[in-house]
């Protein structure tokens, strides 16, 4: 490991909210590790985003779509029975699964499609794992009448059939990717290859807070509405900020969206939950890049990765297609090394149990991704006092996972 660059990421910070720097780094993580063909476009995107940020018209247009199209603000819900069941902290759910299209992914897609339109791009591409991002992209492309192509690993196409049907219905062209293990990382490679070949007219809507700068920043900013709303709603409900935040992490966009507005609140403990798959001790059997990986460079940024000693990327495993990615957004890597956020891992089995528990206790079927967060709440809440408050981001609904869950539980559908 290079140690010379890590010094910038060690604490003594006045704020955890100032990153990235002008070169796109959070400490040693992030950056712009892309082919020269893409560099001019990435610089153009950065300046287009900076212009949009300071344009009140952009904010107004996005705000209108949030309210009238995706249904924001999403509720902050007191999970009363779950709270009683765990016997500790008061548990709240941030209900981003109630957004149009069923997850937090629409927050980012609405922001990026407006950006693509401002840049005059006429064709949209995206990668997807669980299909939630693909559905959100196909949705905004239908709404704004832009042709779109979605890259999805062949394995994921098979295990996320309902979302595949939704994307097709919405008019997206779906490309099943067979290279590698046919999962999210391979889909991202193919989307990058498409982008390199079609830079003149194509905008790439990356689905998570990863990739080359400025994507980690702009995706975070578009998702931060989750945390901003949570602050306001919590002040209204309890008159104070929560004691703990919990969110699941694949690439980490829902988590950074919840966390970012709270990073400088020293009294708010923050937990990111990675996919522990079959267990962190099982080689290539999990998708926990931070708790079970090492730093490296992939898909345009330096971050924690699942890789072997030769720097070859491993496929990883999770029962949840949305967490099955061998990397993580660079800001999370930095928050891990700086110690601000604690990252933990939950296994497939624990997540499956949490999904069932939430369904029975609250009448909400969560997606497998936030079921990992719920499983950690199950461990954390009982260790906290009854006067303490915990918020978990319920970032997606479970309809898409019915077949996977039924199969895992031996149910006949």
């Amino acid at each position, binding site marked *: *490991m*290079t140690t010379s660059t890590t010094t910038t990421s060690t604490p003594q910070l006045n704020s955890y909210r100032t990153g990235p720097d002008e*070169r796109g780094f959070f400490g040693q993580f992030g*950056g*712009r*590790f*892309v*082919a*020269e*063909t*893409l*560099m*001019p*476009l990435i610089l153009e995107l950065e300046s287009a985003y900076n212009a949009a940020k300071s344009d009140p018209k952009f904010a107004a247009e996005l705000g209108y779509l949030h309210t009238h199209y995706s249904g924001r603000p999403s509720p902050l819900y007191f999970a009363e029975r779950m709270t009683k069941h765990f016997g500790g902290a008061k548990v709240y759910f941030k209900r981003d699964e109630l957004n149009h299209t069923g997850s937090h992914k629409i927050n980012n897609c609405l922001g990026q499609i407006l950006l693509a339109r401002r840049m005059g791009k006429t064709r949209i591409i995206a990668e997807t794992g669980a299909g939630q991002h693909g559905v959100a992209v196909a949705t905004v492309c239908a709404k704004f009448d832009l042709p779109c192509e979605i890259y999805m690993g062949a394995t994921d196409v098979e295990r996320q059939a309902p979302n595949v049907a939704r994307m097709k219905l919405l008019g997206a062209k779906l490309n099943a990717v067979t*290279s*590698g293990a046919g999962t999210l*990382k391979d889909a991202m*490679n193919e989307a*990058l*290859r498409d982008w*390199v*070949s*079609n*830079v*003149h007219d194509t905008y790439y809507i990356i689905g998570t807070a990863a990739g080359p700068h400025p994507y980690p920043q702009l995706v975070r900013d578009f998702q931060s509405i989750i945390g901003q709303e949570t602050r306001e709603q919590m002040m209204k409900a309890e008159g104070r900020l929560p004691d703990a935040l919990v969110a699941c992490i694949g690439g980490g966009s829902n988590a950074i969206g919840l966390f970012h507005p709270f990073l400088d609140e020293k009294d708010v403990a923050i937990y990111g939950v990675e996919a522990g798959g079959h267990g962190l001790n099982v080689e290539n059997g999990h998708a926990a890049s931070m708790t079970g990986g*090492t730093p*490296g*460079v*992939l*898909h*345009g940024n*330096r971050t924690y*990765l699942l*890789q072997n*000693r*030769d*720097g*070859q*990327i491993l496929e990883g495993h999770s029962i949840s297609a949305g967490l099955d990615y061998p990397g993580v957004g660079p800001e999370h890597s930095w928050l891990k090394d700086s110690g601000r956020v604690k990252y933990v891992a939950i296994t497939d089995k624990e997540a499956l149990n949490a999904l069932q528990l939430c369904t029975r206790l609250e009448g909400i079927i969560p997606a497998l991704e936030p079921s990992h967060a719920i499983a950690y709440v199950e461990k954390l809440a009982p260790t906290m006092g009854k006067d303490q408050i915990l918020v978990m981001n319920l970032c997606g609904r479970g309809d898409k996972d019915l077949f996977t869950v039924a199969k895992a539980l031996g149910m006949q559908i």
Partner: protein
Amino acid sequence: MTPTRIDRRFAALKAEGRPGLVTFVTAGDPDYKTARDILFGLPAAGADIIELGMPFSDPMADGPAIQAAGLRALKSGQNMRKTLQMVAEFRARDTETPIVLMGYYNPIFVYPTDEFLADAKKAGVDGLIIVDCPPEADDELCLPAMQHGINFIRLAAPTTDNKRLPIVLKNTSGFLYYVSITGITGTATPDPTEVHAKVASIKKATTLPVAVGFGVKTPEQAKAIGRGADAVVVGSALVGAIEKSLGSDGKATAGTVSAVLNLVKSLSGAVRQR
């Protein structure tokens, strides 16, 4: 930097008055021994500069042919240390033909970088082409490589405009690699007239030799592109010849080495034609 093998080779080509042939094959494709035999045979077959691919699991800028080559190499057990060993074996027999390692940053970063550069220099590596290290990341690898006496060869693309070109050229040494198509390796076919115009405009901004690659497959294309460039790079076609020569079990056959070297011979003949 003092003149390197690459500088000397381009000076010799200039004196001969012909474009050079740069050949790309992936280290360890389809296995260590076959790849090494191909490497050993390249200079005699007419390769002026050798690009040796460092296999990577996620080659984002490569088309299907080079993706498959990397996977074959990794499957056969190739890794970075073996790639450097292959260069050292080559260097023991050939002290003049430049070798440029081409690939992606991650396997170098985890090696880690300083140790890699020292080992690469010792093995006899002359240059590096690292697809995902743009000028914005020069302090990561480009500048340390120069300190080790290794040329860092930068790619320029059709999207590199006149404003950006000086940034790309700034720390480039050895030669500039012009990517002749907007896309991934071995897919579209470059238009020689457009390429020549672009190379001519690049040469107004630099005294470095300019090599052209991505999409050059046949001797005819190599000849046409070579007329307006200092060198032509052929990769996917050679890797494709390896693939076609393999047995039904995916292993090398008696014809694998000669399939590649025969194609190099005809490409080399074409760039030598006036």
